[in-house]
C-alpha cells in the first residue's frame, strides 16, 4: 500500500501538516462497518492512534489502523481542490469505499 500525493496535494500541504486517512465506525443492526475520510492535520496534533504509512513523499500520510487494514493491498492517490480559502483533500477511492471494503465489494484500483 502506498499513498501518493499528486502535484496539487503536494503544493497545498504545508510543511507542518500531514494527510490523515481516518476511519469512522458506522452501525448496521447487529453488524456494522465503517467509512474512510481524508483530511489534513498539524503534525503536532497527531494522536497515538494514527500511524505513518508508506507514502510519497515519505511521512506525509497517517492512517487509522482499521483504514490501513482495508487498504493494505491498494495504492491510493491523494489530491486536493481549493475553493477560495478552503482546501479540500480527496482520494481516488470510490464513494462508500469503506462499506464496500467491509462487504468485499471494493472494486480494484
Amino acid at each position, binding site marked *: 500500500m502506498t499513498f501518493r500525493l499528486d502535484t496539487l496535494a503536494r503544493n497545498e500541504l504545508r510543511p507542518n501538516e500531514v494527510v490523515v486517512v481516518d476511519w469512522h465506525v458506522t*452501525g448496521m443492526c447487529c*453488524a*456494522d462497518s465503517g467509512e474512510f475520510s481524508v483530511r489534513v492535520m498539524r503534525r503536532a496534533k497527531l494522536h497515538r492512534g494514527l500511524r*505513518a504509512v508508506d507514502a510519497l513523499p515519505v511521512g506525509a500520510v497517517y492512517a487509522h489502523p482499521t483504514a490501513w487494514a482495508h487498504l493494505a493491498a491498494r495504492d491510493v492517490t491523494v489530491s486536493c481542490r481549493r475553493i477560495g480559502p478552503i482546501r479540500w483533500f480527496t482520494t481516488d477511492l470510490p464513494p462508500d469505499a469503506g462499506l464496500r471494503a467491509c462487504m468485499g465489494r471494493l472494486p480494484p484500483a
Partner: protein
Amino acid sequence: MNKTRLRSVLVWTVVAVVGAVAWAVLALSRGENVSAVWLVAAALGSYAIAYRFYARFIAKRVLQVDDTRATPAERLDDGVDFQPTDRRVLFGHHFAAIAGAGPLVGPVLAAQMGYLPGTIWIIVGVIFAGAVQDMVTLFFSMRRDGKSLGQMARDEIGPIGGAAALVGVFAIMIILLAVLALVVVNALAKSPWGTFSIAMTIPIALFMGFYLRVVRPGRVVETSVIGVVLLIAAILAGGWVQTSAWAGFFTLEPKTLVLWLVGYGFVASVLPVWMLLAPRDYLSTFMKIGTIVLLAVGVLVTAPVLKTEAFTAFAFSGTGPVFTGSLFPFVFITIACGALSGFHSLIASGTTPKLIQKESQVRLIGYGAMLAESFVAIMALIAACMLDPGIYFAMNSPAGVVGTTVQTASEAVGNLGFTITPAELQAAAAAVQEGTLVARTGGAPTFAVGMSEIFSGFLGGAEMKAFWYHFAIMFEALFILTTVDAGTRVGRFMLQDGLGNVWKPFARVSWRPGLWICSAAVVLAWGYFLYAGVSNPLGGINQLFPLFGIANQLLAAIALTVCTTLLIKSGRVKWAWVTGVPLAWDVAVTLTASWQKVFSSDPKLGFFAQRERYADALAQGKLLAPAKNTDQMQAIITNSTVDGVLAAVFALLVIIVILDAVRVWRTALLGPTPPTTETPYVASTLPEPPKLTDLVAR
C-alpha cells in the same frame, strides 16, 4: 492431581452446579413467582461452561488453530506502520459491532409465549449455533486474508450460491431497515418528549462531528463525554417541551414520522460519514455498553420477579396478538440477534479477521463476543417478562386488536385471559409521562418501560421513571437511526453493482447520478415497507417482523453452509456436524416458517390466505375487521401479496445456496480434495501474548 488442576475442577464444578440449579428452578417453576436472578444465573453458568469446554474443543480439535501461523494482520503488516490489534481492544470492537438494536427487540416480542421458550433458545441457540457461526466464519475468513462472506460463497461454493447470497443480503437489508424504522416510528408517535430528544441528537451529532474534526481532532473520549452530557440535557429538556407550547410541534402522527425518516435517511446517507453518522455512532457505542452493564447491575440489585408465565397459552395455540404462529418455528425466527444472527457473519468476515493477532483468539473474539450479545438479549427478555402481562399485551398488540383507548385495551386484554383495568393502564402511561401506552408495538416502548422499572428501582426512585423511559427510547433510537443511514449506503452500492450489469454507467461507482438514483431507490424501497407497515390495519410489526426474522436466519443459513463447505473441503469431514447440525436446524426453522407464511390456509398466518380472505370480502362489497374502509381492505391485500412473494423468494434463495453447496460437498467427498482459497502457511514471528488471567493477576 496437582493443586492447580484440583482448583480448576472445583471451580468448574461450582459453576456447573449453579447453572444447573438455576435451570432446574426455571424448568420446574409453574405458577410461582420466579426471580429474574435465576435467568441471569442460568445464562452466565451456561456461557461459562460453553466457553471453557465447547469453544475450546472447536478451536483446538475442529479448527486446529495454530498460533505459529501468521494471521493476515501480521502477514500484511509492513513492519513499520501497523501492529495487530490487542485482543481486548478487538473484543470491544467486535462486540460493539454485533450488538445493536436487534437483541433488544426480538426477545421482547417473543415474550408473548412466556419467558422459558425465549430463554432456552437464547442460551442454547447461542452456544451451539450463533457463537459457533461467528467463530467459524471468523476463522475461515482469517485464513483467507479477511475475505467477506459473499466472496467466500462465490469462491468455495460457486457463482450461483454466491449470487443468491448477494441477492439475499440486499433483500434482507431493505426489510431490516423498514422494520427498524418502524420500531422508531412506533416509539415516537404522538410522544413530544421522545421526538424532541431524538431530534436533538442530530444537531448534537453534527456539533460533535465538527468538534472532532476541526476543533479537537482525535479527542474521541472528550467529544463523547460532551455528547453524553448534551444528550442527557436533551432528555431533560424533552420533559419541559412536553408541557410547553412546543408540544404540538413535536407531537407527530406515525405517517408524518415516516416522511421525516425517509427524508432523513436520504440526506444522512449522502452526507459525509464524519459529519453526522460517525459521531452518533461513537455516542451509541458508549451508551450501549454503559446501559447494558447498568441494566445487569440493576437486575442483580433489584432482583425483579418475572410476572409472565413460563409458557403462555399462545406458545401452543399460535394465536398470540403480538405475532401469529406457533412456538416452532416462530420463536426461533423472532429471536435472531442474541441466539443466531446471520448479520454477524458479515462482521466476522469483515473488519475483525483483518485485525486479529493470533489464531487462537477467534475463541475469545468470535465465540466470547457473541455470548456477551446473548446476555444483552437475556436482559431484554427480563425487561419484558417483569412487566404485568396485562400491560405487556396492551402495549404490544396492534390497534386492530386492542383499539386505541384504555377502555378498549382493558376489554381486549381481558378477552385474551389477562387482567388490566383502564385505571392501571392510565397510571402506567402517566408514570412515564406518555399520553398512552396502548398499542405501542415494536418492542422498544416495552423494553423502555421494563428498563425504567429496573433503573428507577435503584437510581432515583419512582420520580425518575419518566426520565429513564425516555432515556431508554433514545438509547434504542440512536442505534436504529445509525442503522438506517449505514444500511441505505450498503443497499445503494449493492444496487449500483447490480444495475451496472444492465447499464454500464451504473458500474462506475463514482458516477454521481447513479449514486443519487440508487440512494433514492433504496430509501423508497424501505420507505414503502415502512409506510405499508404504519398504515397496515393488521399491525406492521405483526406482519413484518416474521419476514425480517426469516431473512436474517436465511443469511445465517448461508453463513453456516459456507462454514460446513469449508470444513468438508479442508479435510475436517468428521467435524462437519459442528456447523452442519445448526445449519440443519436453521434450515428446518427457516423453511418451515416460510412454508407457513406462504402456504398456510389460516388467514392470520399465511400471507396468501390472508390476501384471499380480504380479496373475496372486497369482491362481495364487505368490510372485514380491522379494516374500516375499502382503502384499508386494499392496503391489506397489497401488503399480504408483497410479503407472501418475499417470503417465497427468501426460501428459494436458501434452497439454491444449499443445493449448490451439496453439489460441492459431494464432489469433495467422492473425488480428490478440491482446491480451497486458504492462504499458504507463513510462520508467525509475533510473541505469544500473555494469558488474560496473568494480566488480571498482575
